């Protein structure tokens, strides 16, 4: 048979038409599209056994309890732990993405000495030399930990000093320390028993005292109720997230909080709304109205509203003594629902100052926020897990790479502002990269006589057991008195339980105040984000900052 050109064309046409009704071309098209979309550099999740472990978030001093999902030995997800009496199952948005922080491009992986690379041997030699030549100051951002006691011991042995950087919550308690002699770290806010809370700019619904503690309380007792059991009054120049959800928003001018507190005190005394007679505020109401931008009627009405549903407590965003004095006048100091004493044992710490003189060397722990950069002529050794970029803290003489998120064993003392003494243990769950050392390990290598963090935790567990007080709150609540050995206490803590001191200490705390404190404040609105210990944000925080507009600076807001 002769095959003509026409036959070939017919065959080709028929084959093409036939092919189109088969799945072959469509499957090929689909495969090509999938192939071009799945390049080898697209990551695939690591496979491995999945297990859930308990720990605590150590990014800030609030120490929220965490359930950490681990796969192939790495944390792949975190969630809150509802049995924790402080965090109550909540985490902040940054905490939910914190397991990715250890691979942040700004992770500090090598030592740097004034911008050049260096080694641990050189750093150790330089620090040991400095210790021999003069006093050493050690600065801590999360006091009360096992590492903190190690720092204090080291500084004491070298005739140096141990300083702490206070959290906002503790800073607001310092006026009471000055007036009562009780250390600020032994004080807390009994928010759980308050019925009216007047916040002077404190971001109560924005992570203040931990992301879960007040948020849960507010959700249970105030949200969506016209006349709630818990009245939250927010005094703030901007309509912040806390102000937006508060029972009442008082838009006083920025920087006028002290004046408003004085004005409220004046109304409380003039209208005999409080039992106390002193201290008398020096301002008259007309002046207060002028400074705050509120009407005299509004200030009087606010004062009456405050005391209408006791217990009432005023909360300051910083160490404003006028607001502390208002609490004294309201009888909120040492009282249920007010400022209470939570512990008899808390140490008195010396706050780190912006200027450190007469020191040969300053060692700054990785828990200190990056915005703390002291003016000093001393040699500064700064531990950090992440590079601070252009923040002033990066100007330290030595930048020493520290363990990152969940990469080291640490203990978790009571959260700042908490009304209960608590204690937890956060085991290191992730593998630290090579060449990373904590400040405690560094000091231990210089002075081998120092107790290690692990042994200090062990000793503290021993103390808890022999104290026979408190309860271990984990999957079940177990009174310490029912446990047979210190080892059992330690085991429970390693499994994620938290020790809670349930004894009452609040009644033996009084403040003596002779005159109304004079406060001068700059007119500056407090902005989000609040100072955060890590210099970098988890990459997924882009959802908050650049994709949602939820976290923005004050300039863009309508007051």
């Amino acid at each position, binding site marked *: 048979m002769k095959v003509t050109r026409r036959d070939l064309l017919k065959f080709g046409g028929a084959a093409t038409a036939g092919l189109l009704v088969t799945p072959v071309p469509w499957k090929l098209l689909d495969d090509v599209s999938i192939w071009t979309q799945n390049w080898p550099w697209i990551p695939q999740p690591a496979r491995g056994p999945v297990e859930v472990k308990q720990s605590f978030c150590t990014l800030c001093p609030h120490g929220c309890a965490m359930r950490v999902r681990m796969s192939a030995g790495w944390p792949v997800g975190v969630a809150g732990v509802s049995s924790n009496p402080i965090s109550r199952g909540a985490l902040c948005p940054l905490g939910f*993405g914190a397991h990715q922080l250890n691979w942040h491009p700004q992770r500090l992986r090598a030592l740097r000495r004034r911008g050049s690379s260096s080694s641990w041997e050189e750093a150790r030699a330089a620090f040991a030399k400095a210790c021999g030549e003069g006093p050493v100051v050690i600065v801590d951002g999360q006091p009360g930990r096992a590492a903190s006691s190690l720092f204090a011991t080291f500084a004491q042995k070298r005739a140096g000093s141990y300083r702490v950087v206070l959290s906002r919550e503790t800073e607001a308690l310092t006026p009471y320390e000055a007036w009562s002699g009780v250390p600020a770290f032994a004080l807390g806010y009994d928010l759980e028993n308050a019925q009216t809370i007047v916040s002077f700019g404190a971001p109560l619904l924005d992570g203040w005292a931990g992301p879960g503690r007040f948020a849960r309380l507010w959700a249970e007792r105030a949200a969506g109720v016209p006349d709630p059991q818990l009245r939250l009054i927010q005094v703030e120049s901007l309509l912040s997230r806390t102000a937006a959800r508060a029972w009442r928003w008082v838009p006083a001018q920025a920087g006028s909080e002290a004046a408003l507190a004085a004005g409220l005190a004046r109304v409380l005394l003039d209208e005999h709304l409080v039992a106390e007679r002193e201290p008398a505020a020096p301002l008259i109401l007309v002046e207060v109205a002028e400074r705050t931008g509120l009407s005299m009627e509004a200030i009087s009405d606010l004062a009456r509203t405050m005391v209408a549903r006791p217990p009432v407590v005023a909360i300051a965003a910083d160490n404003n003594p006028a607001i502390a004095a208002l609490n004294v006048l309201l009888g909120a100091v040492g009282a249920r629902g007010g400022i209470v004493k939570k512990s008899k044992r808390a140490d008195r710490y010396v706050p780190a100052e912006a200027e450190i003189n007469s020191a040969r060397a300053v060692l700054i722990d990785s828990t200190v926020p990056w915005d703390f950069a002291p003016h000093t002529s001393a040699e500064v050794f700064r531990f950090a897990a992440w590079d601070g970029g252009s923040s002033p803290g990066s100007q330290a003489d030595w930048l020493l790479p520290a363990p990152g998120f969940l990469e080291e064993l640490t203990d978790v003392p009571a959260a700042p502002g908490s009304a209960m003494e608590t204690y937890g243990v956060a085991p290191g769950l992730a593998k630290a990269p090579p060449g990373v050392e904590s400040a405690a390990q560094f000091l231990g290598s210089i002075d081998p006589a120092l107790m290690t963090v692990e042994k200090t935790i062990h000793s503290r567990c021993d103390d808890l057991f022999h104290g026979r007080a408190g309860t271990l709150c984990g999957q079940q609540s177990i009174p310490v008195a029912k446990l047979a050995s210190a080892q059992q206490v330690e085991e429970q803590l390693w499994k994620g339980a938290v020790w809670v001191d349930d004894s009452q200490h609040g009644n033996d705390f009084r403040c003596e105040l002779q005159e109304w404190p004079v406060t001068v404040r700059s007119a500056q609105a407090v902005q989000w984000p609040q100072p955060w210990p890590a210099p970098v944000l988890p990459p997924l925080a882009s*959802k908050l900052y650049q994709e949602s507009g939820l976290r923005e600076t004050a300039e863009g807001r309508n007051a």
Partner: protein
Amino acid sequence: MNARYGMVIDLDRCTGCGACMVACAAENNVPPVTQASPRTGLTPMLVRRVSNRVEGGARREAFIPMTCMQCEHETPCVSVCPQQAVEVDDATGIVMQMPQRCLGCRYCMTACPYHARYFNWWDPVWPAGMEKSLNPGVAVRMRGVVEKCNLCHARLHSAKEKAAAAGKKEIDAADYIPACAEACPTGAIRFGNLADHDDPVAREARSPNAFRLLARLGTEPKVYYKSTEAWVRSLAEPGESLNLHSEVKHG
């Protein structure tokens, strides 16, 4: 009986913290795209800020977590998809998106009245080493496909596996909760089976303060909102458009 999973979001309780957004992204292996903008980011859960449009001391604001509304009736994205890459699962009521079938034509994004769908503009890339932190239960999606909330379907699979291992046919309700609902620090996002009359979430959906966005379209969303404030409820009324902050409008 088939389940109808849905949510009731209590706007009185939402403080706009954004924990739901980050928890969702971490759970579903959403890449942290540094060049993303409000228009191009991947945010299966997005919290929007709304106001009563009054200036000064009488101004009020609220936060609305927006996600796929899981439309039950004439689901717009299902109707328009030329690839059958979207379907409503009969057993659960979840509107499923299958990236392997998706052409990336974005017809579904145009059809979705809630702007709850997002296009994957970039290759999913993480900083070196960060792939170790990815959730092994969820596959990484490729560039060029549309994504959306699937009510953490991987968690439903895990719950089913757990039930099967225990010899049960039904999952335990406590084993299946999406990441956003689990993360919400105030309990504003509640998840449950709307087909179960006695489910607490189904009861809340029947509350007089409950409403659905753009209910007039008749798509029967399975995400309900709740608010005691009339101005917030009025935002969902026919003829009203959401008073979104200008920075968070999505196209």
